């Protein structure tokens, strides 16, 4: 193979990386009270990959997710998001809020929609905050809600929708700013088995069709077959298991 081929292939590989975590450490407390939650996490996720993050309660799943989301400051290590180094033993990104609203999408255990905004407004909030014009935002939001099967609930308030419908709206909100990464913290925790499977299938579809990298925290082993990778926190480190063979599509 020529050097040129190797370089181009290398660049392509680099451009294809959505999340790169190197030797990430997170400690809480000081002195005698110091607790190490993550101790040297290393993993890489490519664009369009759908990964599950599993570990027992208190093992640091949400902590890891929040560090990747630039919400919680790591103790040391390196985080790269979409080719941009955001943390290298200190924050290198100036405006974490702007990074989140432009590159990341969040889905939580509960839908956590803003109760005083209707479905359309909840989903439109971030694109408007990013300065996108109404003529661009409105059709995109409508399209997203149609895609997620709640297009007829545009003017409904969250209190008027079922749990599953609200979770779909929450997914639409996470997608509305065209993020390259979605961080989902137990998005199926409040749903029954059937709805959980529906949501996970939907997330997988989104990952593949929209080339969005998704990390989903889950306790439910039945959902793992839908993921490309399973990240497990073992001994405060992250073990990565590829599951190319077993993935249900």
């Amino acid at each position, binding site marked *: 193979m020529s050097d040129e081929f190797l370089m181009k292939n290398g660049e392509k590989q680099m451009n294809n990386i959505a999340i790169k975590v190197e030797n990430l450490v997170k400690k809480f407390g000081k002195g005698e009270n110091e607790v190490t939650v993550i101790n040297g996490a290393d993993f890489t996720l490519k664009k369009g990959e759908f990964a599950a993050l599993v570990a027992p*309660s208190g093992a640091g*799943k*949400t902590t890891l*997710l*929040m560090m990747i*989301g630039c*919400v*919680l400051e790591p103790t040391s290590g390196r985080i790269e998001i979409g080719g941009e180094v955001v943390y290298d033993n200190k924050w290198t990104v100036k405006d974490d*809020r*702007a*990074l*989140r*609203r*432009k590159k*990341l*999408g*969040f889905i*939580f*255990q509960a839908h*956590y929609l*803003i*109760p*005083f*905004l209707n479905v359309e*407004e909840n989903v*439109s*909030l*971030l694109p*408007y*905050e990013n300065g996108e014009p*109404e003529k661009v935002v409105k059709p995109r939001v409508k399209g997203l809600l149609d895609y997620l099967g709640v297009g007829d609930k545009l003017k409904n*308030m969250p209190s008027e929708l079922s749990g599953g419908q609200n979770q779909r709206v929450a997914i639409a*909100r996470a997608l509305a*700013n065209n993020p390259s990464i979605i961080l989902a*913290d*137990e998005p199926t925790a409040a749903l029954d088995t059937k709805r959980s499977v529906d949501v996970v299938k939907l997330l997988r579809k989104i990952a593949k069709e929209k080339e969005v990298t998704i990390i989903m*925290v889950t306790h439910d082993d039945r959902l793992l077959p839908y993921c490309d990778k399973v990240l497990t926190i073992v001994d405060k480190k992250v073990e990565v298991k590829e599951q190319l063979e077993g993935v249900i599509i």
Partner: protein
Amino acid sequence: MINLAFKDIKHSFTKFIITAISVGILLGIVIIMIGVYRGMIFDAKELVKDIKADLWVVQQDTLGPFAQTSKVHEDLKDRISYQDGVKYAEGITFQNIQMQNSYGAFKVMLVGYDPLGKIKVINPNKIIAGRALKNEHYEIVVSQKTHYKLGEKIKLGRDYYTVVGITKNTVSNGGDYLMFVSLKDAQILQFTYTNERIRSDEARGIKGDNPHLVNAVIAKLKDGYNPKIVAKNIEDATHKTVFTKGEQIKLLLQRVIKKSSKQIGMFTAILIIVSIVIIALIIYTMTLEKIKEISILKLIGISNLKIIKMIMQETLILGILAFISGNIFARLIAGKFPKRVVLELGDAWALFAVIIVASIFASVFGVYKVLKTDPSEAIGG
């Protein structure tokens, strides 16, 4: 664009409106207190302004007749009438009396003046029924708030007086209702004693009573004369103290109602501070209620500025609605107060400015809470 404040208010409209009205009632009380303060000042000046006199001649070295007791001989008016620049001079008396009728007990200031004199003591614009005094005996003009009717007989001292006129908005410097009788009747009421008292005085070597006294002599000046110069001339000639109309008003404001008005002023200031604290607490509580939503907004990437804008807009809207409802409340109940409440537009605007500034100040606590909210609070685990 989405205005978070309007959306939040719309979502909890009833609660927001009830909160605004509750704060408004508090502000309404502040407005009423300012009105009571203004009313005191207004009342203090009203009687002196109504009496069309340029000079007030009172007992030497006194601040009479309102701030201090003053007695001068009635015939002093004749000496004063001859002074250069004086057009007319007449005696006048003031006496506080307690009255009782079917509406209850009340305090009245009885004003005695010469019904045949040239100086107007009752402002004709304030007579709403009947007429001013015409005869030298047994007629009385009363304030509407005493609830006496035209033609009704009122017993004062030993005699009965017929109500011949009813006035509106006539009050003493202390806010008491006014009643007007002729000077001669007033002198009998104030300066004559009972037979027992006269006998007792005679036993002590005091001979008889002297009803020919007045509390002050009021004078009207000819056109073109400087009241201060004429006052000085009268003082030199009569050894009495003379006040111009302006000085008499100043005296009332500075000596008679100074402490009362200060007290009301202090109370008003405290009420304003209490209102600010309550608005601040309400805004802080409203912010706390939304803390979950705020942490979600921060987590998904909404800027602090947009969240702070929401808090401040809600605070301002609350302040404006509270101010409007406070004004409506104040105007509805102002007339129910026994003493005059003067609601001035200037005061309302000044309070509006204070409330707006206070609301912004009050929102600082809410804003501080927003800035301190950790976005990771949105997520458990």
